């Protein structure tokens, strides 16, 4: 009778856990604007796959430990007040095993971690497109050093302009800040990099296909940190060239070319 009950409660716990897990995993599959699982670029995809590589064993261990605790509590409950179990002080072999085995397993995880780490740290290749990113409270500014304007200056974005770049190519970002530390992040294209005053941090991202994504500052940077967002647009090479021509034509006709760092405005960039 008792055994039936504990088997039943075990089954209930297991079902509950699995149900919860299913509910949670359903969250991974949505097409929301900053979902790190909905990778649209090589970097984000590699990062997601590495995360899965650590996450699935972690979930496995979690279920084993939690179920183990429940089973132990049910099985070894004190049934009589004077019940005293055998005094086991330890088992050196067992303990060595559960020290060494996790260490080896974790070191195995380090191999794919390292290889991706060094891939993401690669220097720009010849065909890379370079964008300079500057964070300033509470907006992002972009400069395209490979696109020269008629005045010989590189093309610069105006406040609120989207980040525009060609799809299918590695984009190398040089990231810096003019005031406090920010963090440049477009989740569906890849992880973030901090914008630190006087430092020029570099990393690359790549969009598989043309599209538009939202990103936002990930390092607390003062009052309107929450509003420091950006839009990233990847265009096909053809569309991108057209966009460049249009921009350069705009500079020619416009008397006040974008470029000077604007004063921060409280509403941020939406």
């Amino acid at each position, binding site marked *: 009778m008792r055994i039936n009950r504990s088997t039943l409660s075990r089954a209930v716990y297991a079902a509950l856990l699995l149900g919860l897990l299913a509910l949670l995993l359903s969250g*991974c599959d949505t097409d929301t604007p900053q979902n790190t699982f909905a990778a649209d670029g090589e970097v984000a995809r590699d990062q997601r796959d590495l*995360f899965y590589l650590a996450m699935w064993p972690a979930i496995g*261990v979690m279920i084993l430990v939690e179920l183990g605790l429940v089973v132990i509590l049910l099985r070894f409950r004190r049934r009589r007040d004077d019940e005293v*179990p055998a005094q086991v002080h330890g088992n050196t072999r067992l303990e060595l095993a559960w020290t060494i085995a*996790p*260490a080896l397993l974790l070191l195995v995880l380090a191999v794919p971690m390292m290889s991706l780490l060094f891939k993401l*740290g690669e220097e720009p290749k010849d065909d890379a497109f370079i964008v300079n990113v500057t964070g300033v409270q509470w907006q992002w500014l972009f400069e395209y050093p490979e696109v020269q304007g008629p005045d010989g200056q590189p093309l610069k974005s105006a406040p609120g302009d989207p980040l525009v770049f060609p799809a299918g190519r590695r984009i190398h970002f040089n990231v810096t800040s003019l005031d406090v530390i920010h963090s440049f992040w477009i989740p569906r294209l890849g992880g973030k990099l901090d914008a630190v005053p006087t430092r020029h941090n570099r990393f690359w991202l790549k969009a598989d296909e043309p599209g538009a994504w939202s990103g936002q500052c*990930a390092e607390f940077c003062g009052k309107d940190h929450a509003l420091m967002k950006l839009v990233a647009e990847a265009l096909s090479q053809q569309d991108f060239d057209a966009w460049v021509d249009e921009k350069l034509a705009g500079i020619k006709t416009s008397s006040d070319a974008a470029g000077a760092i604007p004063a921060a405005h409280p509403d941020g960039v939406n």
Partner: protein
Amino acid sequence: MAAVIGQRRSGLSEALRSAREAATGNNIWSWLATVDHKRIGVLYGFTAFFFFLLGGIEALLIRIQLITPESEFLNPDQYNRIFTMHGTTMVFLVVMPLSAAFFNLLVPLMIGARDVAFPRLNAFSYWTFLAGGIFLNASFFTGGNIFQGELGAPDTGWFGYSTLTSTKFSDGHGVDFWIFGLQILGIASLAGGFNFIVTILNMRAPGMSLFRMPLFVWMTLVTSFLIVFAMPVIAVALFELMFDRLFDANFFNPAAGGNPLLWQHMFSLFGHPEVYILILPAMGIVSEILPTFARKPLFGYPFVVFSGVAIGFMSWGVWVHHMYTTGLGTVANAAFGVSTIMIGVPTGVKIFNWMATLWGGAIKISTPLLFAVGFVGMFTIGGLSGITHSMVPSDYQQQDTYYVVAHFHYVLFGGAIFALFGGAYYWFPKFTGKLMNEKLGQLNFWTLLLGFNLTFFPMHMSGLLGMPRRIYTYSEGQGWDTWNLIATIGAFVIAFSVSVFLVNLVLSIMRGEKSGSDPWDARTLEWSLPSPVPHYNFKEIPHVHSLDDFWHRKYTEDEAGRPIPIVAGAAVDDEEHDGHDIHMPSPSYFPLIASSGFPVIATGLIYHTALVPVGVALLLVGLYGWAMEPATEESA
């Protein structure tokens, strides 16, 4: 001043003597002048619990703000100050001093001593902690009219990353209060750290070798060493920041060649040992509760000790995992990624050893045990998400998102706070002679377990869906709404659970069931004493013959190794004894006077330097009187 210590007793000296005598009864003076480790522990506990409620209210405000997208419950300025104070409070004013409360209450009892090595330094630690806590929270009143929602308080996060903390980007005095508040709290922690190292190394009863010490004492020792080495690191960082802010120095000013990342290195180099300062005492508590309630010794005591020591050492080699995205370079990230992976190993060892302790036991399911098992279960989840953080490239995605918030709350709330609740239920009878109510205790546990998971598990999801930390608002359509709604509901379940604890505490103090000296059939020396413990602790200093000495006084073993109760039972040290021939340290007001100097000095540095000499004078008077006063009253 010299008259105070003159050969003849002056009027002042007589007055001090009678003031000290007034402090020997059970009145308010006796608490202000107490040097009794048990009373100081109680003071630490109640003060830290008060700050826990305060930090909890701040957490509720944060959760109310985030319950829906585009909420206007708080404005960004209020939100930023409140989350800064929530983090600062929970780390420095709650978990650290709650651990200190347990160190104070338990360490002398567990090692068979009558007090800590430096009782007045101990009082000084407490009063300095209280001064720092009050000073830090006083910053709320510096922003204008607080009743119209104009809050002061720091607004730069508990991590205070440069250059946001410069006067240019954070005007007002919030950050100044934060700097000096943390400095004062650091002094309190350092004094406590030294005190417990000396106490544990020098004051153990005869026969209590290091490897006969209860696990909690071991974890206190490791934690105290971490405190002594880690607090100076943040003290230096805070001094540099103080110079930048008050005297226009350029330690972190990039325009003058200063380096904002220098702050992050120092803060994280303090910060990572700090998280183990927060968790190791909790691990010690759990390592006492589980064996008692399973009626089995801790499985693999040496492994658990050595893994704790290993964690202490390794905690100094992982700080860059707080800085993966700051651009330190691939090789640095790789090295610290591997060290972060490896620190998971000694932590895992402990979890397996705790489970093996329970395995084969005769487990009594009651509140302290439930909290201890809850700790193991929740801490495991926090540890596993920590392993995913060591995957550096994928951590580029999770850094600074709610995934991290979920991770460290599983470690610090699911871990530390659960264990501290368990410790409160476990040792409450020792100091009051009464049991806490079991039904309310179980209600407290189950609602806390539910509320905790409702609040923090969804944060894994909102983080992976791209929700950054520390944002006061978010827009619809990000897929974050549901998770935030659930989290806010969970926060109120936690609030309910904490209220249950509060009710239980008050009811049990007033009319709890009598507990006797050893209600749990426990294993360590404190349970050999009457409850509540007399002020002199041990009538006779015990001789220790083994690990779990008290257990071996109660049980012997037959040939097959089965434990047999000794019929006479243990001779509990509860004979009538008025302790008249035992000399205990005299009460002293001087630690309180010395501590009161610190906030005055700090206020002076922020507002008007004329106050600085006043504060220094208070400090010096306190230290001078303390040095000259006899530690133990000579017999009349």
